[in-house]
């Protein structure tokens, strides 16, 4: 059996981390293919239901990354995201999701190397945690029920 | 020890980051005994910053660290809030341990030692015993008759007790002087 290849979705802000990941590219710094980026206007836009959706669709791990505190393009979006993350984090246990499956970080447009590092560490961490199927199973079950 | 390590060691022992010092000299400018010092406070800060082992050795052998009165003027006025008196405490203790006390400062050290010795014995300080202990320690420095003029005046004013006050819990108290805690890591 081949090694487990985790599926990791990165929810990133357009102004900092997306540009930071662009810099990773222009600097030709390599990282694992497992991480795939979805662009948001701001981390403040990221509804945590989207994270649950990602797990339900089979994601094994998630990265949420935006601007450093005080660097938000929209002044305060990242603070809202951070506050929401603190609340959401305490809910994770109840939801039965290992908190280590979600990596929350700040990566600026100038931190190309940091982005690669975060991507790689997350992949390694998730690889250790193993596949995550609980939510996917529930989702399949719910879909079946809905059809009946 | 190299520059970096000396700075790290000072930080570890005192919590003071000497790198903060930008050599404005306000500590020296306000120090009441700066004139008498062989190395001025701001110079000591610079030597720690850029110093080698040789420079550290020079600091530990300096007169300055013993002249410092711990009046805290430097610390209170320092724009960078650098706790220089705390660093001086550390330097003095190290100088003592390494046997590098400046010859001129022996009197001062003798006095402090006598002080602690008297306290160790009685729990409280007896000024008469302190004076006697100190005179014995500093015999060679020629201080024996220095305060002869003061003592009679003190006795006549009821200020010098011939029998020292003592505390009761001597056993508990002496524990403080034994088994000194290991150097703490922050």
């Amino acid at each position, binding site marked *: 059996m081949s090694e487990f290849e985790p599926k990791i979705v990165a929810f990133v802000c357009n102004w900092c981390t997306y540009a930071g990941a662009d810099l990773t590219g222009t600097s030709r710094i*390599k990282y694992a*293919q497992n991480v795939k980026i*979805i662009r948001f206007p701001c981390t403040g*836009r990221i*509804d945590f239901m989207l994270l649950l959706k990602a797990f339900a669709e089979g994601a094994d791990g998630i990265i949420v990354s935006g601007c450093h505190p005080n660097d938000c393009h929209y*002044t305060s979006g990242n603070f809202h995201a951070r506050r929401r993350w603190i609340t959401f984090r305490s809910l994770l246990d109840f939801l039965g999701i290992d908190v280590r499956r979600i990596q929350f970080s700040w990566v600026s447009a100038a931190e190309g190397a940091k982005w690669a590092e975060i991507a790689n560490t997350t992949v390694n961490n998730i690889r250790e945690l193993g596949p995550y199927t609980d939510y996917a199973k529930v989702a399949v079950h719910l879909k079946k029920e809905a059809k009946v | 020890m190299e520059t970096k390590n000396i700075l790290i060691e000072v930080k570890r022992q005192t919590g003071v980051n000497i790198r903060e010092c930008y050599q404005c000299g306000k500590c020296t400018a306000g*120090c009441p005994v700066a004139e008498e010092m062989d190395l001025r406070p701001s110079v000591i800060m610079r030597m720690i910053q850029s110093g080698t082992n040789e420079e550290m050795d020079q600091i530990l052998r300096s007169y300055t660290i013993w002249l410092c009165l711990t009046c805290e003027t430097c610390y209170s006025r320092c*724009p*960078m809030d650098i706790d220089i008196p705390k660093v001086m405490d550390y330097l003095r203790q190290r100088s003592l341990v390494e046997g590098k006390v400046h010859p001129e400062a022996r009197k001062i050290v003798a006095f402090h030692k006598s002080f602690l010795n008297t306290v160790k014995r009685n729990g409280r300080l007896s000024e008469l015993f302190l004076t006697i202990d100190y005179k014995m320690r500093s015999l060679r420095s020629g201080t024996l008759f220095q305060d002869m003029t003061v003592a009679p005046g003190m006795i006549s004013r009821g200020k010098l007790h011939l029998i020292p006050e003592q505390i009761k819990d001597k056993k508990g108290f002496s524990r403080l002087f034994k088994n000194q805690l290991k150097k703490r890591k922050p």
Partner: protein
Amino acid sequence: MSRIGVFICHCGENISATVDVVKVAEEAGKHEGVAYSTDYKYMCSEPGQTIIKQMIKEKGLTGVVVAACSPRMHEPTFRKACSEAGLNPYMCEMANLREHCSWVHDKSDATTKKAIDLVRMLVEKVKFNKPLYPIKVPVTKTALVIGGGIAGIQASLDIANSGHKVVLIEKDPSIGGHMSQLSETFPTLDCSQCILTPRMVEVAQHPNITLMTYSELEKLDGFIGNFKATIRKKAKSIDEKLCTGCGLCTTKCPTKKIPSEFNAGLGFRTAIYVPFPQAVPNKPVIDKENCRYYQQGKCKVCEKVCPTGAIRFNQEDELIEIEVGAVVVATGFNVMEPSEFPEYGYGKYKDVITGLQFERLASASGPTLGEIRRPSDGKIPKKIVFIACAGSRDPAKGIPYCSKICCMYTAKHAMLYQHKVHDGKSYIFYMDIRAGGKNYEEFTRRAIVEDEVNYIRGRVSKVYEENGKLIVKGVDTLLNARPVEIEADMVVLASAAVANPGSEELAQRMHISYDAYNFFSEAHPKLKPVETNTAGIFLAGACQAPKDIPETVSQASGAAAKVAILFSQDELSREPVVAVVNRSAPPVYSTCVGCFMCATACPYQAIGEELITDRKGNVIKKVAKVNPGLCQGCGTCVAFCRSKSIDIQGYSNEQMYTEVMALLNDE
């Protein structure tokens, strides 16, 4: 049914070297809803764009996905191409195959698979894209300039000379600001008032400028091109039309011992006063807090002597609303509070003064008519000590930054003193000499070499008085940290430049950001130094950070140019990436429940209320409404909304959920 076109770019070999582009195009072609897919060496080139345009027309494409470099690079290019082919530009998306895939991974099947996933994700997204149209907003071509110092004066004149209207408001009775208080200016030693007053007059006479002194900004609503400013015009207690500025009232006023703000407390003024002889407008105001009539109900001497009957004791503050398209903030700076220097005895010893006070002593229009005399006894000081960095670069006093101007003005002060008192001795205690402007270094060297100013490197610890002398206890760090004691006749503190009191509230009133020291923040420290984070509001001068005159004037002209650019358009168009509250047919009208969580989340105050009424005008429902002019499109409100009633165009819930699903469902 969607008809999507997918265009895979090789980017020379940048993408094709690690990603099997042919396979990606092939796989994309199999995807549901994809009507056409191809790959090409340079999609952004003219022929590449032609392929896209042709296919839009030929295949009747409803959406386009270009898989190439980062959208931050070429999104505008491809959107423009789509638009030229008749497709709404917002129906085009880009998959980032270069920066996020080919450049960061080695050549492998997994890399190609990732590329396929990314393309699929955007194909699914595009299916939910809606045609969007840039938002047009009209522009009111009047600028509001706040602050009548040199920054505000320069900005006002530049805007007015470019043909636009300006309203200049100033909180004090006269314009001129700190520059009017200065004696000579470095590095040329030309007289400050001589170069400033003509400009002040020009402001007052310019047909495009409305000058409102003794006025403050009360409120600012609206958005770029369409601000509504409320200005409080404080009661001057005179009828400005009748007053001729003869000055009789000020000479007769019995309250004469009020410390003069203009003279930095070194001289006195009356309760009805003109701050200085060259004031613009040259008409007095009554300072109510010190006026006998206002405080005790008796006096009215000014009213009795006024030949034109211009005094109006019952005048009240006026609130004036004006519409403006842009705002230039030029509120300047202040010097640090005296109480911060207990060790230097400031406030305790009369002869310890600030740099600004020294300017007044050295100024020909000052309380000593330009002679350097001690405030305590009027004697000419034979020894002066200047202390640089009094407060600046002093985190313990709360100011870690360099005030930038002090090195230069202190050198100038010492020079002026040496020129006026030939047998005098001057000392400057300094930490570094920062003379980084044009002709600045030459200037400080001249002070040292030609004018024999004694520079001593070290800070002063204490200043105290003994036997009528000020004893300065300093140190010379260049001489092995030797303590230095100077018996001085006068001590001048180069006290730090700080933000104006109240600047925090003003920033909040305008919704612009400010830094830890309450200076206003520019939008970008390098590339947007005069813009603020709020579109349409610009910065000029020392309200942004301590600055000297040349820099202030440059920035003011820069801000004016930005305003002129804005006013060169009749309408503004903005990216339509804004939030929208849904509306539906009755009886629901909208799923919005009116909780206004969105309004709490919004950093731009872009969310207001909308009342839905029936035909009779009864309110049926209160819902949130987004002002597209203010909305910047961050989408924080969307994540906050409990009922999923607010959504953001271009990053809608539908689109984002689809992206997540498409990315993970690799069949």
